[in-house]
């Protein structure tokens, strides 16, 4: 009994510490985020390969004109646990991009699987010039660099549900919340109003219905669907080994739990004849 009490006391202490930790994302002024169901959430979460492929399509056809992904290697698109395109598909895709290489003839050569995704702009200055002075952030870890605001006590539960998808929810809500500014709100030149942020943003609404043609005819070609798919893709991009990590983690937890029980039984046996 004592041990159960101690464990409860410890859990309570841990909970107290967790609760007093900061709610990490700063509050943004706009409307509260609508949380989505993500296939990669929770301890059994895995990426939906088809969704990642569609998300990549949206990225390539829409976002990549402005946003880079410097840590994305073409080979990553083939590797297990990601969009899992075939090697031929990606080799072909890579060969459409030219990579600067001083050793190649003419200082340029087509990209290979080993190369990283080339930046859409030659320099930051060029990127800003093309975007009214604003800099489109690199996508490599962007989904980890954003989070949503949750009031107390909602975020306290995250420690127990392992909710980590705040970045994906942020991107989805951002992309689906372009609206006309409410009365009395001024949006400066070169910006559009976004209800999720509650302010203007220098990125013009990049999505509209029917913009991208999905191979799968059954899927809706809506902003919501595009936003969800590209957000999932960006989450994979920021956390590419999530699937294998969670699989190992599950085994580790099972192993540790059994080991803990065995340890407890051994301990009890050793202490059986001791009054303490």
């Amino acid at each position: 009994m004592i041990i159960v009490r101690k464990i409860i006391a410890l859990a309570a202490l841990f909970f107290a510490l967790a609760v007093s930790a900061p709610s990490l994302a700063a509050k943004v002024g706009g409307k509260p985020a609508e949380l989505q169901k993500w296939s990669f959430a929770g301890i059994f979460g895995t990426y939906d390969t088809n969704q990642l492929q569609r998300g990549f399509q949206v990225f390539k056809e829409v976002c990549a004109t402005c946003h880079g992904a410097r840590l994305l290697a073409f080979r990553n698109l083939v590797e297990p646990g990601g969009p899992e395109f075939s090697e031929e598909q990606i080799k072909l895709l890579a060969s459409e991009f030219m990579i600067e290489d001083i050793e190649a003839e003419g200082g340029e050569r087509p990209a290979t699987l080993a190369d990283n995704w080339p930046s859409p702009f030659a320099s930051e200055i060029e990127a800003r010039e093309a975007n009214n002075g604003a800099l489109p952030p690199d996508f490599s870890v962007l989904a980890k660099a954003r989070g949503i605001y949750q009031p107390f006590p909602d975020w306290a539960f995250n420690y127990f549900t392992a909710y980590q998808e705040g970045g994906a929810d942020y991107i989805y809500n951002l992309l689906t919340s372009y609206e006309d500014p409410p009365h009395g709100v001024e949006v400066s030149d070169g910006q559009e109003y976004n209800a999720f942020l509650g302010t203007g943003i220098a990125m013009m609404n990049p999505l509209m219905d029917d913009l991208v043609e999905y191979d799968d005819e059954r899927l809706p070609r809506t902003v919501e669907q595009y936003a969800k798919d590209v957000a999932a893709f960006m989450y994979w991009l920021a956390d590419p080994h999530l699937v294998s990590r969670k699989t190992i983690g599950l085994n580790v937890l099972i192993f540790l739990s059994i080991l803990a029980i065995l340890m407890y039984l051994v301990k009890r046996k050793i202490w059986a004849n001791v009054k303490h």
Partner: protein
Amino acid sequence: MASKSSYNPKNKVEKWLDERLPLIRFSKEHLMDFPSPKNLNYWWTFGAVLAVMLMVQIITGIILAMHYVPNIEMAFDSVEHIRRNVNYGRIIQGTHAVGASMFFFAVYVHIFRGLYYGSYKSPREVIWILGVIIFLLMMATAFMGYVLPWGQMSFWGATVITNLFSAIPLVGTPILEFLRGGFAVDNPTLNRFFSLHYLLPFIIAAVVGLHIWALHVPGNGNPTGVEVKSKADTLPFHPYFTMKDLFVVVVFFIPFAWFVFFAPDILGHPDNYIEANPFITPPKIVPEWYLLPFYAMLRAIDFNILFINAKLGGVIVMFGSILILMVLPWLDRSKVRSGSFRPMFKPFYWLFVLNFLMLMYLGAQSAEGIYVILSKVGTAYYFGYFLIILPLLARIETPKPLPNSISEAILAKEENTIAINAEQGENK
């Protein structure tokens, strides 16, 4: 304690070694035979948890250092390289990052155990003081480690914290520039932080050695606070406590693994996934959760005291809040060690715990309105507890009667449970 060990060298080689370097004898004395009070509860297992966590941090850290590049142009991407391209890199890096939090969680349990059971009292003052030194070194190590990934929080955290030193009169600015290796946080800062971040854990390990040496002179305290009277009060460390500690370490690894594998970023800040940029200040600069109570106390001082300006005052209060622990054995003069026998002490102690958690919460809030007022109240109670309440309680409190020995206490507890069981039996 166990100066005469039961060790008899078994063969010629062991005997030969024993006469030249009695390593096996030493290990047997200190890791196996060492007599420990048999009534130690689970709060006494966290020392072992901490020793294991220190090893975990050192091992994962050494592997990370094989791939990490301490250069402002490459640091951020090299950490991503570890996460993405190094085999099991995401798990090793996650273990190290989450491990820091788990380490601090364990050290807080260990410290608060000491505060409740009066572990710092004679004859264990030196164990305690060495502990405070370890705690300081841990905070320095964690702070410098957090700078290494060179994200926005790394950079701005380093800027804010090093900037504190400029509050020191006269020598402040030279010290600041010495720490940073220049006028602002830059490549030289990152280089020296990496070097020191690699060094300090080994210094911690050395101080832990002293900590345990000092512990093995008087031996462990125990929940009754009554010293060991006879052999009947103790058990050999092995197998009784090795097994108990190992069990707790495995249990401790369960939430640890939970975070590493399922939520490795939940204890960090999203802004640290943005590469450091000296031209963009993040909307809110917050340290890691385990430094928040001290950060709250730093910010609570927003007024001048005589010739001490607010900034210097804050720095004095922040460092003072840890240094005061050093003299705690001489502030709390109550003869009774264990809080269990101190009826007046108990409520103040639990209020102190709550107050500490409140300060932790406040450290993460913006310094305005009600939060500042609460921080001031919290800071006042933190210092009041050590400087006024504990010295006063020692004079006015009447403690409950202490058992004569550990064995007697165990017997009394047992009779008590038998009595309760009998009572329950009658009621049925």
